[in-house]
Each structure stands twice: as C-alpha cells, then as structure tokens.
C-alpha cells in the first residue's frame, strides 16, 4: 500500500492533503521506546499544569511529586515496594490483553488472593514452619485464578463479556473482604476493629533492604517477568495466543482455539493478581483489613499498556507508575495536594500513551507516493 507506484494523474489525491497517515505493517522499533517516553514527558508537563491549576506552586509540587521520592532511601524503598505488585499484575494482564482478553478486574483477583492467603495464615497461626509462606502463595495464586476463572467460564459457556464480569466480580470481592474482616476473620482481641489478628513471622516475607519496607516478594515480580518473556516471546503457546488476538479468523483457521485463549488469558492474569495479593498481606500489611490495595489492579492495566504489552517494556512502566503512587503520597504531605492527584495523573498517563501511540502504529507518508484506491 505504501510502496510508490506509477499512477495516472487523475488518481492522485488533492494537492491540499500533502501528507497522510498510513498504518505501519510492523510497529517501528524506535517508536516502541519513544512513544512511552513521550507519554511520560507529556504526563509530567500535564501534571505540572494541573498543579498550577489547583493553586499549588508548580515547582514545589513537581519536586514533591517526581523528585523527592527519588532522593531518599525511604522513597526508593517505597517505589520498589509498589513496583512489586504493579509489575506482577501487569505481566499477567498483558498476556491476556495480547490475546484481546480484557480482564479489568485484577483488583478483585488480588483481594481473593489476599483473603485466601490471610485465611490460611490465621487458621495455621500456631504453625511456625518454613512451608507456611509457600502454602499461602499457592492458595492465594489459586484463589486469584479461580476468581478470574468464573469470568472465563461465563465467557466460554455463555459468551458473557469478560470486561463487565471481571469488573463486577471485583466489586463483589470487596464486599466479601468487608464481610470477612468484620465477621469470621475479625481479630477476637481487636476491640471489634474490622481487621484480623496479626500474622506470625513465618507467614511474612523477609525484609530485603534496611530502613525500607521492601521485602523478598519483589523477587516474585522479577521471576514473573522472566517467565512472561519466555512464554510470550519464545514459546509456541504464547505465539498462538498472540495470533488469536491479532487475527482471530486466521487463528481459527490454524486451529488455535479462541476458548483456550480466554481461559489462559484470564487464568494467568488472575493467578498473577492473586499472588500480588499474597505479597501485600504477607508483606507491608501483615494482616487482613478493609483496605488492602490502593487500586493496584486498575493501575496495572495502565502499566501493561504503557509497557507496550511487552514483558520487558512493562518493567520501566511499573517503576513509573510506582513513582506516581509514592509521589502522590509525598505530595499530599509536603505540597498539600489531594489523593485525587495520583488518579488524575494515572488517567493522563494512559491518555497520553494512547495519543502518542498513533505515531507508533502509523506513519506520515507523502500523498504523491501513495496509490489512491478507487
């Protein structure tokens, strides 16, 4: 389509439209790096304008939001702490997204993982054995996958949109958590606060960096990245999954089942989110309470897109998103910004990315080099 070919003058487009957008056959390599960078830059500019709009000094707010977290050991630790769940969930979601399976309920799958692991830790509170934490990780992963599996089953069996079902299930999961921490799993000695008893040390991840809250669960996200890279870039099942997303008709012709893509996409995403839930309750929290995740499940959707749905691209994307979280917390204290700022910047980041993506998937071509379709 883009190749120059001799055309009769009457078939040429009007001179006024000198250049046109043409879909790239293959996304530009340079663009896969430049587009996310441009999106982050646009978000920084947009954020600074937003600070000014909210009546804050842009320089102070910018410093508090984007610079301060990077200058202290505590700040770096917090960024790494929040990178863990974001990276883990986004790797799982990206696999589904590549197959056009839209799991937007990772938040609920995370909660189910947290609930299952927490319930096990509380039930075995007398056990101080090494296998307790791995057992929690196992049940949490399975619980997250099972919660997403409901959506997969409804999609495969009834063609119910997984977008709506996964979102609805995350709202249900939150109510389930509320019920459990104010009822069956509430700490009997806790003066009726809606939270569970504290977990024992055997049910907690070990600290990784002195003076920070970073723990060994970060390694789970790193391992997940390696596994996702091997699966998506090097394995046949991963390739089949992507073809199914890119060209459903071709995939069917080649015998790559759509049903399998739905199951794999949702189960992998749910498992990753469930494991992230375990890392939260067995990490910085150490108990079950009403608030377990500051929206990691939703933010991870943005991380997956910003990372170009590529296992390696998702790593820097998760770090940027973690910075937005930590910066938002710090700016609340030192610049008096509200907790809405992080959400606003998250939205801005995804919008900027989608807007910039046009230049990754399309290119400007001089009209006289184009064959005009009759």
């Amino acid at each position: 389509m883009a190749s120059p070919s001799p055309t009769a003058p009457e078939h040429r487009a009007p001179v006024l439209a000198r250049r046109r957008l043409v879909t790239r056959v293959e996304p530009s390599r340079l663009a896969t790096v430049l587009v996310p960078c441009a999106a982050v830059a646009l978000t920084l500019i947009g954020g600074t304008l937003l600070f000014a709009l909210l009546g804050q000094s842009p320089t102070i707010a910018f410093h508090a939001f984007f610079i301060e977290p990077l200058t202290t050991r505590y700040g770096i630790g917090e960024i790494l702490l929040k990178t863990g769940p974001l990276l883990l969930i986004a790797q799982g979601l990206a696999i589904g997204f590549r197959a056009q399976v839209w799991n937007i309920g990772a938040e609920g799958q995370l909660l189910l993982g947290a609930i299952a692991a927490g319930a096990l830790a509380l039930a075995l509170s007398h056990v101080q054995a090494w296998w307790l934490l791995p057992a929690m990780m196992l049940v949490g992963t399975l619980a997250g996958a099972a919660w997403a599996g409901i959506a997969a089953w409804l999609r495969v069996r009834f063609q119910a949109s997984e977008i709506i079902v996964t979102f609805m299930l995350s709202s249900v999961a939150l109510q389930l958590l509320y019920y459990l921490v104010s009822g069956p799993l509430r700490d009997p000695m806790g003066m009726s606060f809606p939270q569970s008893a504290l977990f024992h040390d055997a049910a907690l991840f070990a600290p990784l960096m002195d003076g920070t809250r970073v723990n060994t669960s970060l390694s789970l996200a790193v391992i997940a990245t390696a596994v996702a890279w091997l699966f998506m870039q090097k394995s046949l099942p991963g390739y089949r999954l992507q073809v199914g997303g890119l060209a459903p008709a071709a995939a069917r012709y080649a015998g790559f089942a759509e049903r399998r893509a739905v199951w794999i996409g949702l189960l992998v995403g749910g498992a990753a989110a469930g494991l992230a839930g375990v890392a939260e309750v067995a990490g910085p929290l150490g108990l079950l309470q009403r608030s377990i995740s500051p929206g990691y499940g939703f933010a991870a959707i943005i991380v997956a897109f910003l990372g170009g749905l590529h296992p390696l691209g998702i790593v820097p994307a998760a770090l940027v998103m973690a910075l937005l979280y930590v910066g938002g917390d710090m700016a609340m204290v030192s610049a008096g910004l509200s907790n809405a700022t992080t959400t606003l910047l998250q939205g801005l980041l995804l919008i900027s990315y989608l807007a910039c993506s046009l230049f990754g998937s399309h290119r400007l071509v001089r009209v006289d080099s184009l064959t005009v379709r009759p």
Partner: protein
Amino acid sequence: MIDLLAFLLAGTLAAATPLLFAAMGEVVVEKSGVLNLGIEGLMASGAAAAFVVVASGGSVGAALSIAALAGLVLSCVFAALVLVCLAHQVAAGLAVGILGLGASVQIGKAFEGRTIAPIARIDLGALSELPVIGRAFFGQTPTVYAGLVAVALVWWFLNRSRAGLVVRAVGESPSAADAIGYPVALIRFAAIAFGGVMAGLGGACLTLAYTPLWADGLIAGRGWIVVALVVFGAWRPGRILLGAWLFGAVSLLELALQGVGFAIPSQLLSALPYLVTIAVLALISRDPRRLRLDQPVSLGKTHVPRA
C-alpha cells in the same frame, strides 16, 4: 405492606433514573459502532460537578448544565483518542474513566460528606395521594419523568428518524457509510458527545435527586452497570428501560429487606446488584445468534478513514 409496596415502586423508578440517562446516551454511542467504557468516570464527574454547584448556592439548572459540560468535555477527550488517534476503544474508555474518577474526587474534595436539599417532587394533589401508585407515578422529581422522555426520544431517533438511520448505518458498516459519503468520524463524534452529555446528566440525577450527598465512590459501579444494561436491552431503548427498572428494584431490596428485619449480611446485599448483573448478562448472552442480530457489527472496532 401497602406502604412497603408504594416505597418499592416509587424508589425503583427513582433509582433507575441515573442509569437510564447514561444508558440512553451509551446506546446511541454503541449504535454508531463505538464502545465507551468510561461511563463510570463521566457519571462521577457529572455527579460531583452538579453537587458542587448546588452546594455552593447555584441553581438546579446551572448544576445540570455544568454536569452536562463535564460529561461533554471528558467524552471529547475520548472522541479525540478513538477518532483522531485511532486508539483502541477499550483502552481509551478505561483511560477517560480513570481521569473522570480522579476529576470527581478533586472536584468534590471540599464537599466530602456534605448534603443538599434534593430537587422537589412534583405534587398533583389528589393524584399524588393515590395509594401505592400515587407516589410512584404522580409524585416523583422532574428528573424521573425526563428520563422516561429521554427513552421515548432516543427510541424515536434510532428507529424513526433519518439521522438515527445514518447513525445505525455507521455502526453496522463504517466503510460502506464512508463510501457513500457520510462523514463517519463526525457522526461518531456527535454520538460520543451526546453520550457524554447524557452520562453527565445521569450523574447529576444521582446527586441532585436520588442521594443528595457527595462522597468519594458514590457512583459505585453504576457506570459499568449501564454498559451491561445496554447489552441486556439488546441495544433497544424499551428493553433497556426494563433493565434499568430491574436494577432500581435490586438496589432498593437492600433498604427494603433491612426494613423488614431479615438477618442477611449487609455486604451480601451490597454485592447483590453486581451479582444480578453477572447473572442476567450470562442469561442474555447465552444465545449467540440473538447477540449477532442485535449488536452493531462494527462495535469496538477502529475505523481507519480511507487513505
């Protein structure tokens, strides 16, 4: 018992109204072939904006205008992403939804937990005093009747007007509409803008009439229920109305059951609307032939203008 019935009937119609406004917008958007998943954020912004206007002493008219404007601005961002930048509609909808939720928290921050006097109910004297049906049909806020008028107008627009036929043609086959010479992007933009205004107004109905207070998270998934409603209703305004009433009734069940004194965990009742959505969605979607008949063919697909 009669009192309870009257309460349920009147409350169902009132609770359905915010959903109805947003759903009437979304059905036009989807009929044009565009899936806007940002309704939750649009409704939240409209709800917060309308509340702030009235809580600061503004009129209801001003509040409705500002809510419509908030929905319009956000839907223009969405339109720019999907029509100009050719972004994936699911991702663009999520992005605008997140932005809208953030904006609603920011707008309503200073008013968190405040209440306002709700819009007055109409009073038709003896008619409004009728047992059971009086409150429900002749004693509602004007927004409830406006919602019903919106259903009628959207039905007429989609099924009886020439412009509606063009919108549907664009949704069924944008390339054919393009080839005939219809400005596909412009028509879709108009549909998206209308959807944004209606979602903003739906949010406003929530804070001005149904629950006259502001709290972060007030929308509570209603925007997603709207997206589900359009599927339930098979993209037909009349059936969407029935779906909205069903959800109005389900959300009232919580209050009604507590009133009667059933010992059910409140969390289960709070989760009920979401569980019912899932169940009904599965039930309605199970026949793929029906879906294929009713669903706009190009729904969710990016249309690249002719080069």
